[in-house]
């Protein structure tokens, strides 16, 4: 198991290196750090001198190595708009996004598992038909439309929940959290439902189809033949095998969820990384864009590595492969 974890971590480091390369290539091609630093009044000769001094005329590869060295030290450059290190800007925005993703993931996990398992065990019941029908609708409606509909119904018409912003937040060791106030939770409900609206139906359908396949297997039939109780057959014999492919797909989807926040955060004026990203695009803040990409990339890789390790815990075959 230990060797397996180490190998996975080395692999993910390599992936991060590649992400850095792509990020740097974008920055190298599009961004102009000199423009970020100086005003219009600076002459061309002065700009060229500055360019030379900053090493911008060096070969691509040596610039890349310098970029990665700085990145490892946590220096991803200065944001031209905020006039602050990009990482600081992102870290300040991260709690909002991560809390949103966290609550959405909880919604997805705690609704999709029972719904998917039920739909697999009772494929003909009317509730299953309803779940499957609703999931098609859920997948088909784009996130921003779901978000607007939610705002219209629950904020405009019913007036139950706020329509934008994070509400009251509390600072917890520098982490601005909305999870500790009732107002914060009220603000979280609609955005997290909107964010989970695509993934939840996908997960229900995935769990159902995997579970139905497992229920057809010989070992499930054997479990019945052993006279085990239905609960044990469904939730120990069948569900554990259903989980394996779901975990793999789930890890990737969780990463995509972070990307989806861009839409949700925009509609709800949620002051997170996604909203910041969109603003950065409008301001052509290249350094901030690349820094965002790097951070999201690292988070993505970290999540996937963790998912692989969890997978190894559930699946004994992988564990053995790692033991050798």
């Amino acid at each position, binding site marked *: 198991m230990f060797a397996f974890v180490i190998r996975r971590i080395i692999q993910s480091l390599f992936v991060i290196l590649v992400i850095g390369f792509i990020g740097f290539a974008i920055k190298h091609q599009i961004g102009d750090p000199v423009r970020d630093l100086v005003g219009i009044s600076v002459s061309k000769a002065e700009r060229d001198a500055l360019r030379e001094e900053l090493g911008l005329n060096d070969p691509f590869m040596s610039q890349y190595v310098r970029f990665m060295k700085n990145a490892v030290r946590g220096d991803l450059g200065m944001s031209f708009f905020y006039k602050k290190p990009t990482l600081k800007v992102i870290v300040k925005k991260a709690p909002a996004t991560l809390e949103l993703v966290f609550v959405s993931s909880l919604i997805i996990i705690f609704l999709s598992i029972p719904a998917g398992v039920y739909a697999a065990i009772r494929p003909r019941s009317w509730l299953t038909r309803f779940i499957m029908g609703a999931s098609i609708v859920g997948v088909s409606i784009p996130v921003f439309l779901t978000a607007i509909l939610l705002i219209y119904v629950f904020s405009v018409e019913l007036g139950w929940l706020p329509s934008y912003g994070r509400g009251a937040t509390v600072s917890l060791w520098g982490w601005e959290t909305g999870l500790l106030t009732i107002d914060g939770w009220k603000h979280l409900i609609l955005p997290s439902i909107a964010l989970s609206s695509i993934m939840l139906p996908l997960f229900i359908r995935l769990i159902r189809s995997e579970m139905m396949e497992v229920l057809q*297997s*010989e*070992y499930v*039939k*054997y*479990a*019945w*033949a*052993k*006279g*085990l*109780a239905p609960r*044990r057959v469904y939730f*120990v*014999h069948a569900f*554990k*095998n259903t989980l*394996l492919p779901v975990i793999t797909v789930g890890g990737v989807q969780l990463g995509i969820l972070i990307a989806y926040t861009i839409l949700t955060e925009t509609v709800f004026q949620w002051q997170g990384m996604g909203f910041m990203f969109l603003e950065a695009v409008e301001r052509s803040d290249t350094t901030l864009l690349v820094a965002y990409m790097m951070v999201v990339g690292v988070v993505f890789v970290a999540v996937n590595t963790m998912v692989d390790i969890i997978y190894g815990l*559930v*699946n*004994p*075959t992988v564990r*053995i492969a790692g033991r050798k």
Partner: protein
Amino acid sequence: MDHLLEIQNLEVKFRLRSGEVTAINDVSFFLDQGERVGLVGESGAGKSVTGFAIIKLISKPGFISGGKVLFEGRDIAGLSIEEVRNIRGNRISMIFQDPMMTLNPVLSIGTQMTETILAHKNVSKAEAQAIALDKLKKVHIPSPEKRLDQYPHEFSGGMRQRIVIAIALLTDPAVIIADEPTTALDVTIQAEIMDLLSELCESEKMALILITHDLGVVSQVTDRIIVMYAGRIVEQGLTRDVVSNPRHPYTKGLIAALPESQQRGKALSQIPGTMPSLTDMPQGCSFHPRCELVMPICKEKVPELIELDNKNALVACHALAKGGAS
């Protein structure tokens, strides 16, 4: 006298989109305590379905549409699913065909063994483990203590089938139904597993229903043979009688097709044609399109199982009923 297990006029149907088809038709046989019976026939003859019907575990869209499965005085076919669960894996154990597929890949051997005991007996986990260890020893698995924590993929096919046999023994059942227990295994391992199984039936006083298409295996292990064709029993008798003196033309064909009974240098003999599909059963005796002794009546009337020289020898064939060719 009462038999341990008696199947009376069992009928199993499958509900298909095009209507219902009958997979098992009017099957009756019995099993006494400690007796070993072989259920033989080609693929699709209904042997496995019969085996699963005994524990009321037929995969959808199949269902028992008629007949009785009397076990220790109760009709399993008429019991509720909770009551059947008390019999499955407890009084009647099953051994499946492919040991690579039967054991759950994500659960340890220990878990898969103890859960069976805990489902049927009121014992502690430690006691269940002790029983599991004892049964693993009975199937000659080396260092069983270590095995309980291992997973199925750490075992070879033969070892896995030994574990499946050990699981079948856990609750000291009255009957073991073994559905092609050696088909998926290496030829060298087949004999070992078969020896083990018959040795255990003897020592544990268990009755065995051995479902197989391998007449060689059946003749080594069983006391009686039941030959099935297209969902019906065509011949029944003591193993030594049926093997040495088959009566039904189908059984004759099967025995003649055994490689052991062939002459060197000659082409292997075989029964012409294939078994009809369930949706396309011929009128009358379902074997008549392939039969050498076919007569006009065979195409119209289904032959009944009749006693020949003693009450143990039954045959369903018009040609034999007339006392003609035998």
